[in-house]
């Protein structure tokens, strides 16, 4: 108990003694992590948005015009039995024509001139959630296209592919920036801890002489790293939250984007906690790095 309170007090005293360095370390760590956070936030929001858009994707399965009604029922059976299909809506030739006329009243005479209805019957298919990724949509469409009685499978392929590409590149950039800036945060904290280690080298030597184990000697510095990392991370979240609110405010006042401000979201609490834990981990890693370099393990 006394030992624990000693260790806690030591790290507290370390941080208080180097108040300025500690503050600077927390601030720089916070700025560094906030840069990562911006990308993470962008990524999370784009993914959510992409998810909504993909949820709305409807796939048009056009039927062969020469298909007998029995065969249409057969195709319907087959589609309903498909694990990937969430819902199905049949649009007959007449309904298709009606819709066309309703949408393009001025052009309807074009079709009348043909004498017979040229529009094919179709099924509008919505896929189950686990089949809504761009790749899964593509695979499904290609498979169904080859089935008998089906003339054409259509969906907004270019658009979905483009979105997938954008998300993938943001993912890559976020990972790249995350790795580089995390390494920067580790270095910042490592340097701060090294200053403490240097200031206390005599004390460390004394602790070694009187039989303190390496882990005992390390604990206050690991704690210091953990606190610096966690505080830096928490502060970066606060800064992000502030920027996020500012951004939303801005959107609301600009009439054009009104309403859109409700669609962008901040990290949920669980993710915030996870990010603070990650910051703590980076801080502990920083401590380890500086203790390795300082060579305090030597007798």
């Amino acid at each position, binding site marked *: 108990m006394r030992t624990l309170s000693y260790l806690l007090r030591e790290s507290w005293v370390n941080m208080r003694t180097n108040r300025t360095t500690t503050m600077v370390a927390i601030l720089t760590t916070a700025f560094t992590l906030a840069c990562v956070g911006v990308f993470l936030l962008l990524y999370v929001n784009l993914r959510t948005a992409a998810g909504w858009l993909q949820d709305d994707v409807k796939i048009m399965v056009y039927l062969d015009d020469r298909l007998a009604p029995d065969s249409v029922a057969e195709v319907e059976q087959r589609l309903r039995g498909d694990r990937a299909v969430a819902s199905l809506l049949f649009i007959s030739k007449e309904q298709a024509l009606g819709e066309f006329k309703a949408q393009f009243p001025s052009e309807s005479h074009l079709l009348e001139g043909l004498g017979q209805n040229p529009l094919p019957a179709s099924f509008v298919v919505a896929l189950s959630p686990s089949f809504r990724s761009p790749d899964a949509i593509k695979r499904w469409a290609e498979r169904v296209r080859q089935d008998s009685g089906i003339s054409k499978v259509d969906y907004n392929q270019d658009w979905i592919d483009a979105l997938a590409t954008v998300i993938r590149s943001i993912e890559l950039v976020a990972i790249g920036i995350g790795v580089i800036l995390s390494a920067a945060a580790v270095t910042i904290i490592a340097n701060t801890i090294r200053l403490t280690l240097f200031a206390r080298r005599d004390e460390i030597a*004394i602790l070694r002489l009187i039989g303190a184990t390496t882990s005992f000697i390390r604990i206050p510095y690991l704690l210091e790293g953990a606190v610096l990392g966690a505080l830096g991370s928490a502060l970066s979240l606060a800064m992000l939250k502030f920027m996020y609110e500012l951004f939303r405010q801005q959107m609301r006042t600009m009439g054009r984007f009104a309403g859109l401000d409700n669609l962008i979201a901040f990290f949920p609490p669980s993710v915030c906690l996870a990010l603070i834990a990650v910051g703590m981990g980076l801080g502990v890693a920083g401590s380890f790095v500086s203790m390795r370099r300082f060579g305090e393990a030597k*007798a």
Partner: protein
Amino acid sequence: MIQLIHVSKQYDQRLALSDVTFEIGKGEFVLLMGPSGAGKSTLLRMLIGAERPDEGQIFVHQKNVTTIRPSEVPYLRRKVGTVFQDFRLLPKKSVFDNVALPLLVQGVSSADIRRKVTEALRAVGVEHKRDQLPAGLSTGEQQRVCIARAIVNGPVVLLADEPTGNLDPALTSEIIELFKLINARGTTVVVATHDPLVMMQVNRRVLTLSQGRLLPEHRGLG
């Protein structure tokens, strides 16, 4: 208790210890003498695993410290108390906290720490300074606090490297008397010094090093 067998140590071409062999039994009081640079500190550092010999074997308390793993070194040091010329007290901690440190790092309970530290401070006669900072003490008192810290654990061996180097003759004899008392209670004591005054006070074994070699043994004149 302490055994050296053909121990040699070299620091970039310079021989610090050369083929040193001796044995110190349990409960002995031994002086390690020799001029500056003779290798006394090097020898003591080897006994606590802070330095390794190039050749030979060293045993302390039945433990071969030549092959000791780094993770075992702290446990060796809990059995071997050390006192230095430059005291090595923590300047921002009270006398009590300084002496408590060896117990603290072992996770000893608060009650035991209080009891043992009080005992150790009483044994060296600085009980009344327990709440002061080291800087507020005289050099003699500071050395006593160091000795208290070295014995608070109840070590089997007490090693002192030039413990009277910063003290005047009167204080020197006080500290030597203190070592004799500690030795009388069963602790093996090894004092390294180049101060002839110390030898005048102790009628015990004297091991003399000269340029890393052990000279024929004799007894102190005390």
